[in-house]
């Protein structure tokens, strides 16, 4: 029997991309995606269930579908994306329900993969230059987003302790850049602006979105356990990030920073969630030695990820955004996936 995989956040960028990448693998017998909205990527054979963000339905679904792998991509890592309460529901309660379903008596789940963020390390002057997977934070998390991610990871650790038979993988990603992902940094760069705190030029890391998708895919297919930092090589000062991306540096006052940017954020001219503000002050470095030792190879460095994104932005400025939009139609999807009228390529290939 092939693998049976459940993906959360199918309607988000990550879920959709990972599902599309996994679909191609015939080893995988069944792919089931969950999400709160509609999928944004055209998918061949991935089943889709709409659920609320806290996944209260999960235990039933896991039992009924007998999935062996859960890929949890639906963790929010941008505090400007939703309110504090919604963030808590999605990250903390969502993960709790997910792990409860995966750890229920008689569960068929053998692997759980969680897409976390390097935000769990925080950003503080007392930080080391490099964080390894085992380096503790310098101070306990202060912001809602960091707190919620720290709670998520502690649930995942508890789950791993209680279920020694399950392969548990946690991936902590650095700032992701790419043509499709939408983050505070990518939105700023698309406006041609790179905010920075006057007098500070800390080092940042980036990872290209295709590397993120490939990394998640590798972890699923090879069932690698453990916690891993994921980032392209090199650490780039913000001034150079702006240079590579062809953006203007927007210096912000180092004192009363929040008050200084509030009107710009309100007017929609700038994205600067509080966790990014601290990153712009002190930077962060995550050590990817462990991931590379596990055999993963990055397609590009930190600087390369910025450059690729810069190319996409230049193209968009020249020709406009012409990527054909995909619209999810439940009837059409059901027809293509389940109607006997469709000749199924994958089965024929087997």
């Amino acid at each position, binding site marked *: 029997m092939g693998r049976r995989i459940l993906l959360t956040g199918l309607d988000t960028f990550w879920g959709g991309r990972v599902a599309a990448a996994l679909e191609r693998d015939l080893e995988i017998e069944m792919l089931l995606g969950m999400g709160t909205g509609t999928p944004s990527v055209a998918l061949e054979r991935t089943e889709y269930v709409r659920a609320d963000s806290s996944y209260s339905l999960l235990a039933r679904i896991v039992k009924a579908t007998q999935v062996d792998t859960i890929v949890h991509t639906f963790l929010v890592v941008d505090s400007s994306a939703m309110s504090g309460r919604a963030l808590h529901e999605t990250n903390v309660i969502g993960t709790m329900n997910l792990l409860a379903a995966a750890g229920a008596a008689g569960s068929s789940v053998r692997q759980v993969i969680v897409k976390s963020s390097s935000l769990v390390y925080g950003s503080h002057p007392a930080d080391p230059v490099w964080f390894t997977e085992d380096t503790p934070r310098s101070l306990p998390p202060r912001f809602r987003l960091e707190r919620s991610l720290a709670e998520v990871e502690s649930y995942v650790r508890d789950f791993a302790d209680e279920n020694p038979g399950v392969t548990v993988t946690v991936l902590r990603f650095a700032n992701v850049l790419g043509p499709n992902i939408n983050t505070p940094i990518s939105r700023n760069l698309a406006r041609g602006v790179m905010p920075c705190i006057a*007098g500070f030029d800390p080092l940042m890391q980036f990872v290209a979105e295709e590397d993120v998708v490939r990394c998640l895919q590798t972890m699923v297919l090879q069932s690698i356990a453990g916690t891993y930092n994921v980032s392209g090589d090199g*650490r780039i000062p913000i001034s150079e990030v702006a240079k590579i991306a062809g953006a203007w540096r927007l210096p912000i006052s180092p004192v009363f920073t929040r008050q200084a940017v509030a009107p710009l954020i309100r007017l929609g001219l700038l994205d600067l969630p509080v966790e990014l503000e601290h990153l712009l002050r002190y930077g962060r470095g995550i050590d990817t030695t462990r991931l590379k030792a596990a055999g993963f190879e990055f397609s590009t460095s930190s600087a390369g990820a910025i450059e690729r994104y810069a190319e996409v932005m230049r193209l968009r400025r020249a020709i406009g955004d012409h990527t054909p939009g995909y619209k999810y139609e439940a009837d059409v999807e059901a027809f293509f996936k389940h109607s006997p009228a469709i000749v199924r390529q994958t089965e024929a290939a087997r």
Partner: protein
Amino acid sequence: MLHFPGLEPQPANPLADPARRSDVDEWGRSESARRLARRLGGFYYRRWFRVEWEGLENIPTSGGALLVGNHAGAIPSDAPMIMHGVEEELGRPVYGLADNFFRTVPLVGTEWSRMGGVAAHPDNAHRILHDHQQLALVFPEGIKGPSKLASERYQLRRFGRGGFVETAMRAGVPVIPIAVVGAEESMPILYRLPGIAKVLRLPYLPLTANHLVFGPVLGTVLYLPAKFRFRVLPPVQFDVAPRLPKYPRGRVMDEAEAIRQQLQEALYDMLAHRRSVWFG
């Protein structure tokens, strides 16, 4: 907190990546900023402080070592002079480990990092000494050294909790004590203003002799031309296995105290032989 990856001879060269647009390496150090520092430092090193070394052969020309000195002067001039001197005389870079307070100061923190300064975190020191096999410089007195008054000059403060010894033991490198004479007189503190320092969130706010001589602005940036002498003491090797998660606290404290004693005696000896503060 501990991490033991494979050996890398030195940090990756940033210019090897075609997408890069600057020469800032993974530690924040930039060769072009170093060139600027060398030009400025060269003037101070040769003409202003007229630095003279003793026992320079005690600093190895390859392999990691932790340089340890006495710290002095309101804005310490000893760190850049040792860094410049070793680079000039031996052609080896020195990573200066400084209190992470620096990182919170706009401009100063960034420039310090570009010129080869690193926040004094045990993990950072371990990577520099063990993984990269480079030289690191640390002042175990910490902020207590430069904040002392001129009347307490050359009286070594407590050597922290001996963290530098543990770091050297773990990295398997020797500690090389360097006694510095001259830095105390380059910017002596006459008076401290603790109240204002607290409001400004500074570790200390000094009123220096330089302020009296050069005025409030120039006095903050200009050093008095004291004669500098560095005496490098023989390397202290620790007979322990490297890379252990923990070392006996008592042993660490004893070693730290022994190094402090050695430095203190070297300082007294050098001062006894010094005829003039300005001409050595």
